[in-house]
Structure formats: structure tokens, C-alpha cells
């Protein structure tokens, strides 16, 4: 948590400044921002931060860089609404505000010795990248890491330049799909669930991690459960209106949880009794 400069009382609403060092476009509407916060942000994969966009306001995002390298913070963001449009108008060298991190981290100690099956859809690969980098940083702790990723078209794939490097990492197995292919596309074609047709791990003793649009989350979860993944080993990034980040304002209520405090990653076991958790 950020420390106040004035006395003992800490103001959790007060952002710290962060400079935009670099930006690069992943796709026509997805951009990665490399930020240099004034103080180190001690985030762990799974947690999120609140970004203050000068001249606009605040919105929650999940870092996509490794929590083992905290001097810089990378965020891969899709332009979807007013906050992200304001963010996309910023240039390298501009200042942003950051507060956080908030929420719970992935319980990596529970992943140790297991096969980990990660499924991402669209820009949902961004928060999963933070997890993937944390896992591959200490890859000997895990049995194998499977990364499955689906995008709408080959043009919509994020981290295109990084994926070939990731394929060469030991104990890593990567497969991609697109909803609609083109002449250059040699991989699978179909919605992301085509990547679940052959699950190469021992589902009952493995961990699955999912992040993507709600409809994709819903069908991937169904597929994973059918394949035998235990409900308490299916980790889902839940999308709710996280506003304060402190577990206080109430907006992100999801059944008994405040996702900003208890999530944003919750297991299927935690959300299974909530009516239509993927909205």
C-alpha cells in the first residue's frame, strides 16, 4: 500500500505519478503502455491497479508484466470506452496516476508441482501474461505450462512478437486459434473452445486459469469442468465494476464477494452458486 508523505495517516485514494516510457500497438485497438512509477508498485500476478488518466478520471487495469521485474509496469489495454479513449490519446513521456495494487494474487503455492492450463481470449491474454511470466520465471516449480489463446483474427492476436520466444521456453506448450483465419494463418480456426478439444494434461490433478470476454469465460469454464478440472482449481478473472479497489464502495459486488477485494480472480467453486456470474 502506498505510504502517505504527511504523517501516519495513509490516503488510499491518492495516486502516485507514473511516466509513460513507451507505447506500442499490439493490434489496431489494443496498445501496451510501459510505465515507470515514481515508487515501486508491489503487485503480484492476479492483482490489479487503478490508473488515473489526467483530464479524465480513473479505471481499473491489470498489469501484464512480470511481478519479478517491478521497476517498470506494462499494461496492455483495449480501447473500448471513454477512459481507454482518453488513455490512448496520451503519448510517451506523459504522466499518469497509479494506486494499488488491489485484490488477491494467484495462489501460486497451490500451482506447484502441477500442470497449469491457461486459456485466454482477446485482450484477456494481458493479465494472463503477468501470470505466465511469473510461472516461467520459476518454471522448475511447475510440471508444465499450457497456454491456449484465441483471438478473432490473426490481426487481433496480442504479443505477436513475444509468442515465438515463449514457444521456445522449457516446459511450455502453446497453441493458438482464431475465429476467422486468413491466407497466412496456419493454426486452428474456430472459437476458443476448439483449443479445449484435446486437453493434454491430467485435468483432475491440474489447475486451469481463464481470462477473456464473459461469453468465452462461460463456455471455456463449461469445457474445463467437463474435461475433469476440479471447480476449486479453475481460476476465473471476473469482470465487475471495480471502482474503489478497497472493498468498500460496493459497486463490484458479485454474490457475497467484492471482486476488488476477494478477487478479481475467483475459482469456479466460489462463483458457481451465483446466478449468471458471467455477464
Amino acid at each position, binding site marked *: 500500500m502506498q505510504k502517505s508523505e504527511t504523517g501516519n*495517516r495513509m490516503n488510499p485514494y491518492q495516486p502516485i505519478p507514473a511516466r509513460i516510457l513507451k507505447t506500442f500497438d499490439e493490434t489496431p485497438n489494443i496498445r501496451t503502455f510501459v510505465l515507470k512509477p515514481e515508487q515501486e508498485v508491489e503487485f503480484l500476478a492476479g492483482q490489479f491497479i487503478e490508473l488515473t488518466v*489526467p*483530464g479524465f478520471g480513473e479505471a481499473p487495469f491489470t498489469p501484464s508484466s512480470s511481478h519479478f521485474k517491478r521497476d517498470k509496469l506494462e499494461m496492455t489495454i483495449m480501447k473500448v470506452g471513454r477512459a481507454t479513449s482518453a488513455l490512448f490519446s496520451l503519448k510517451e513521456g506523459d504522466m499518469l496516476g497509479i494506486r494499488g495494487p488491489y485484490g488477491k494474487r494467484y495462489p501460486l503455492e497451490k500451482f506447484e508441482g502441477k500442470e497449469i492450463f491457461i486459456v485466454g481470449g482477446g485482450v484477456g491474454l494481458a493479465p494472463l501474461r503477468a501470470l505466465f511470466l511469473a510461472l516461467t520465471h520459476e518454471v522448475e516449480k511447475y510440471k508444465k505450462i499450457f497456454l491456449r489463446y484465441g483471438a478473432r483474427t490473426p490481426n487481433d492476436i496480442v504479443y505477436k512478437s513475444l509468442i515465438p520466444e515463449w514457444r521456445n521456453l522449457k516446459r511450455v506448450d502453446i497453441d493458438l486459434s482464431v475465429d476467422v483465419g486468413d491466407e497466412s494463418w496456419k493454426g486452428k480456426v474456430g472459437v476458443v473452445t476448439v483449443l479445449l478439444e484435446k486437453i493434454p494434461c491430467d485435468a483432475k490433478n491440474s489447475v486451469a486459469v481463464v481470462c477473456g470476454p464473459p461469453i468465452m469465460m462461460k463456455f471455456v469454464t463449461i469445457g474445463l469442468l467437463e474435461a475433469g478440472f476440479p471447480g476449486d482449481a479453475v481460476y476465473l478473472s471476473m469482470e465487475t465494476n471495480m471502482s474503489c479497489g*478497497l472493498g*468498500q464502495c460496493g459497486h463490484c459486488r458479485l454474490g*457475497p464477494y467484492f471482486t476488488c*477485494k476477494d478477487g478479481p480472480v475467483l475459482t469456479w467453486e466460489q462463483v458457481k452458486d451465483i446466478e449468471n456470474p458471467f455477464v
Partner: protein
Amino acid sequence: MEPRFLPSTKRDNWLGQLAREYTLFFPARVEKKVHWHRLEAEDLESGDSGPEWGLCCIRASEPIKSFLFSPREQVASFPDRLEPEEPEKRILFGVKDCDLLGLKVHEKMFLEGDFKDPFYEARLKNTILIAADCPDPEDSCFCNLVGRKPYATEGADIVLSVLDNGYLLEPLTEQGEELVRLGGDAFQPGTEAQIARRDEQRKAAVEKLEKTNPKPWNPEVAKAMEDRTKDQAFWRKHAATCVECFGCLMSCPTCFCFLLYAKAKEAKVERTRIWDACYLAAYARVGGGANPRAEFLKRFINRFQCKFMHFKNQHGFYACSGCGRCFKVCMGKIDIRKVLGEL
């Protein structure tokens, strides 16, 4: 700590001492309602009696949360920093137990989680609470149904009972004891007869409440509510007259939801917090436009589940104080007792 007696004739002298050191608010009777009013030491000195005191009335129209959890305040700015200022020292004189329960809920939310709210914490630290018994509960009161009493035994610095010719005060904290000490000789040790009279009044108030609300709720309300989650007919029946004005939520002493919004001026951002209402259509809507509670019925159920299921399961008590404000202000006359009574 031992109860002390303050004769009516010496009250104003003591109040004057308090009002010179603190900003003091008391419940004033205005027409048929009670509102919080600021006591000016000068007025007391000049013999201006001001509005009639309503210490024996039920709670004021406004919940005391307004004093601690401000309806609107700036909480951050960027790139300049904003830190909480030292709030003024206040006394709330004559708080009812139902409002104290509201503070207990807010303490759970704002002070006991992973993050402390520095604005709330500073105000609470600088606020002295003098509770007053509620000798004459009205038909809208139902604190007995949520397991509370019409008098405080904790959560205040002093508990005060109005007797025929004075006040019996029982300090609960060192700060409360200090205030009584300020009054010096004006205070006498409370006698057994005075304590017995207080207990009699309290007993009568409890009996009146039990007469008004004779049937206790299902002791497993949280469970019953969970089982009813999908019973659309039940909820539809109770929500039928709701006009979504959210007066119930704004007048509720326990509601804690707030909205953070930004006022952006060129490159600057001022972040302000205002009370919010979970009945609002856009309350849970996310950036991309999806809304998990787009239908009003879901928001209606969510309000009840928040207070009687989730909060109870997590903290062991209801986020409802039985103050009755929610249906006193309700244009659709939705009586929370009726909803809970049918579970």
C-alpha cells in the same frame, strides 16, 4: 463506570462548557420531526433557548452517518496530492442506539478491512458520542427484531437517560468520564432509586416495541433469503410499488455504498466521493457496457441480500438497525418488516 446524576437546573451550564470546547449537535424538535441542530455556546449564555430538545424522541430524520461519512467530499487529487485534514472536534449529544449500529457497520467496512479510510477514521476519532435512551419508540421502530435494544450499552462515550428532574449519565469510556468531570460539582453520584427508575423506563420501552413487533423474524433469515434468491414471485410482490427513488438507501444509517467520480480540469483530476445507491440502474455496469443487475428486481434482491445475508454471514449481525427510516420515507410504502417477516 458509575452512573452520575445531573439535575435539570444545571444542564445548560454543563452544555455551555461543552459547546465552548467542541462543536455540539443535539436532536431538535422541529414541527413533528427531529433534526440535528448545532448548539451555540453564545445562545445559551444569552438565554436563547433555541429549538426544543428532542432527547426523548426517536432518532432524528437524518442518520448520524452524515457526520462521519460525508455525503460529498474530495478524497484525492492528481498530480497535486491531497491528504486528510484534521477534522473539528464534535459532540453528538443524544444519539440513539439504532444510529450507533450504523456506525458499527461502517467501522467494519471502513476501518477493519485491508484498507482504512483515513477520512472516516479521523472524524470518528474527533467525535464524542453521547447516546440517549429511546423511552418512547414509535410504530415505525423495530430494533427489537434485529436484536437491539431501545438504549445503548456500548459504542458510545456516555449513555444518558432522561429522568423526571434531571439526567442519569453513565460514562462508558475515559473520554466520556472526562466530559463528566468537566461538569464538576454539577454531577452527583446516581442513586439506586434513579437507576431503578431508568431501568423501569427501559423495560417499558422494550415492552412497547415487543407489542408493536410481536413476531420475531425467522432466526435463519440469511439462509431463508438465500433459498428465496430465485423466487421471483416473492420479490416481485414486495418490489411492486417501488418507484426507485432510493430514499430508503439515502436515509439508511447502515448503507455504505459510494461513488467515486472525477472532476477533470485540463491535466488535473479531482477525485470526489459521494453516497451512492445500489438501486440505480448503472450502479454495477462495467466499462464495456455489460450490467449484471440491469433489471430492477435483481437490484431489489441485492439490497436485501447485502443487509441480511452477506453482511450477516460475514460479520455476524444484520446491516439493519431497525430505525424504520426506510419505510417512513418510502413512497411505495414498502415495509422492510413485512418482507423479512415472510421469510
